[in-house]
């Protein structure tokens, strides 16, 4: 779903912040940028899944128009503005929105240092939530013997929804509600994770960019300070696409 079905434009070159970036037939701007080692901030996008387009962090200007780099097809000669002060300022507001609508306590979160949201906030020099915190009431689901769900950190990227349905073939997750009440659903009559066929090896468990889907008893096996983004920031030019598994 959402994959552009119009005939793919032929390969070519576009310019991102003045830099020449080649692209292959059918690639989006974000895909081309990543292959070229150009960091376009993003959260919901994952290389193994069709673009989702919900976080809006990859917003760039394409020939003067605001576009999501994850869904916009690359085309020859496109002039793309990526890391302008204005766009980064907008991204910071989007990040602040994601922080205040949930309950994010980085110092006590076991995903700290492995979290895309936190790492992206550092990469964009976010210095605080700015807006008032919403403090939503989102009970934790610790029913499963090997996994637990902390909905407080969910950013509704739907990576787990796609991975569980399309890769694991289990459809453990879905999205419910609307507006600010939109939330992640677990597929069982009880609504609890223990009553689903999920297992720790599932792709759905690996792809969470934040700390919602976590394995029990390994939370601090790697100490804070030695984790993925502690060692190398998310916007490091050398970060290879293969790094982006979301796996702890």
């Amino acid at each position, binding site marked *: 779903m959402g994959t*552009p079905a119009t005939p793919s434009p032929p390969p070519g070159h576009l310019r991102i912040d003045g830099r020449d970036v080649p692209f292959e037939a059918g690639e989006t701007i974000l895909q081309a940028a990543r292959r070229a080692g150009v960091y376009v901030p993003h959260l919901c996008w994952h290389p193994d899944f069709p673009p989702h*387009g*919900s976080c809006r962090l990859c917003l760039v200007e394409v020939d003067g128009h605001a576009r999501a780099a994850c869904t916009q097809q690359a085309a020859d000669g496109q002039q793309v503005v990526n890391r302008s002060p204005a766009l980064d300022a907008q991204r910071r507001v*989007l990040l602040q929105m994601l922080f205040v609508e949930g309950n994010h306590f980085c110092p006590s979160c076991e995903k700290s240092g492995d979290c895309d949201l936190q790492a992206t906030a550092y990469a964009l020099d976010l210095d605080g939530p700015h807006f008032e915190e919403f403090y939503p009431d989102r009970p934790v689901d610790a029913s499963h013997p090997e996994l*637990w769900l902390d909905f407080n950190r969910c950013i509704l990227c739907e990576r787990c929804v796609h991975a569980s349905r399309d890769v694991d073939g289990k459809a453990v997750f*879905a999205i*419910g509600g609307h*507006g*600010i009440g939109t939330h992640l659903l677990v597929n069982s009559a*009880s609504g609890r994770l223990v009553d689903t066929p999920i297992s720790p090896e599932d792709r759905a468990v690996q792809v969470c960019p934040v700390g919602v889907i976590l394995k029990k008893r390994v939370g601090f096996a790697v100490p804070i300070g030695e984790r993925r983004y502690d060692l190398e920031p998310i916007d490091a030019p050398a970060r290879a696409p293969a790094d982006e598994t979301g796996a702890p």
Partner: protein
Amino acid sequence: MDSSLPPAAIGTAATAAARPALSAPQGQALATVLRAQSAAPHGLLQILRTLQAHPAFEGWLPPALLARVAEATGLSLAAVRGVASGYRFLHLKPAGRYRILFSDNVTDRHAGSRRLMADLCARLGVRPGAVRDDGLVSVDTASCIGLGDQGPALLVNHAQVVTRLDAARIAAIAERVEAGVPPAAWPAHWSRVDDVVHRAGPLLGGTPAAPGEALMRALALGPAGVIDEVRASGLRGRGGAGFRTALKWTLCREAAGDDRVVVCNADEGEPGTFKDRALLARHADEVVEGMTLAAWAIGARQGFIYLRGEYPFLVPHLEAVLARRRAQGWLGRGIAGRAGFDFDIRLHVGAGAYVCGEESALRESLEGRRGTPRIRPPFPVTHGYRGLPTVVNNVETLCAVTHIVARGAAAWAAMGTPESTGSKIHSVSGDCERPGLYEYPFGTPLARILADCGAKDTQAVQVGGPSGTCLAANGFQRRIAFEDVPTAGALMVFDHSRDMFEVARGFSQFFAHESCGFCTPCRVGTELVVRRMDKLAGGRGSRQDLEELLELDGLMHAATHCGLGYSACHPLRDTVRLFPQAYERRLLSPHFGPAFDLDAELAATRGLSGRDDPGAHLEP
């Protein structure tokens, strides 16, 4: 670490397994509905809507039922729950045997809807938004239900409207609810919906095309000839965006595939709009014929009317028109005796989601999913309903097509302006003597419409609904046209007694209520805007809040996934510019101010300590 966490607080889900299975009548109801509806994933929304309306379920969808529906459609239970919880008119918890929703558009509020709602709540002993303890009734608000010309109005059990509410009618409703009188047995005149046409043009007046008249001409013209005729008329889409109808049809006709679909977008959700209601009530034949003409032009075999859930009173009428036209040979196989011209139309009823008026969200909803706008491209003209090339046209557009084909393009093109040909119907409501329907050629100055509808002492006009444009006196000479002031058909009048800040605040609440929740800037941004508007309304705002509101407007305009978030701050932006004093007088301090009332926060402590002396309060 996490294994030592306290047992999960799972909420209501933990008890789901303990709930009883379906009763025998419920099981029969389910079987009946599944037989009548397509028991496939794309039938889900109609299945849920029909089940909830069935007497066996008392207006809500119990967990055992959702499980059975999931089984029958092959969907996961979570997917079914996700769809059901995405529509405001579907209920996963009991919502009362009487479910009363007051239309909550700003014009309804101006006409006293909030006061009447409080009155009804007091009479029935129920809190707004809650179900009474005995499960008899709930009273809440809904976004505009399309009766702005005869409001305040309400919707009962998603099945029946009550118009022209006043204190006496509220008292009478309360009595009937307490006595258990079913809504169907309430006085019929309470539910009367009048379509008062104050000024008619070709669509609302004149000689309506006889059923089949345009079709017979279309058969002579051939499909390409029909598109040529529509092109020559200059017709542009009446849903607001003004896309050229002939171009949309051509793109669809040329799209790859053997089958095509025509959808009539009758999800008229823009607050203040009710012109499609009138067209469907009085001119359904022309609308359906317009769909059939589109089918002929593009080569479609199936059609849908996506009717908003707020118009249940139109369902029997539309079904009857469709049945009659089938009997007359204007729908079905071999239309008008032409072998191979097969086209039929199904009615699809929405369930309270404004965003489904956006054509890609409408497609999702037609296919039984949550009303989330899709990534575009591809557009519906190449990948629409179930992947088939699909034309989605507004009710008024399709009605116009029938007139154009029946009477010729020249007459249509001669009306209006070169860029905006033909006529436009306005749903006029608010502070004027004669609310109702007005059809003018495009290019008509706003001042003319205001004079005709008896608007006095007008402060502002919201053209095209909250996602349109707000104009003050210096804009009343502007003309209604795609190249000047475009509109989807709402025209709300506000006189000088109205507080334009409160108007904008009401619209901001509307957008937050209707956000689908998919993208960050709309989901969180609409909520942040409401909080800031509430802060200003509470007299605790500062200049910084105002600046922040404008920054949020800029972000949402640039970054949202669809038009809802893009437009959500238009009323704010317009009213700040046009009526700065409405905001200025609410600013407590020119600098930063806290979002909460410090003294109020101490109320709990004062209660505990039994003190209320000056020393227990902060300095004002």
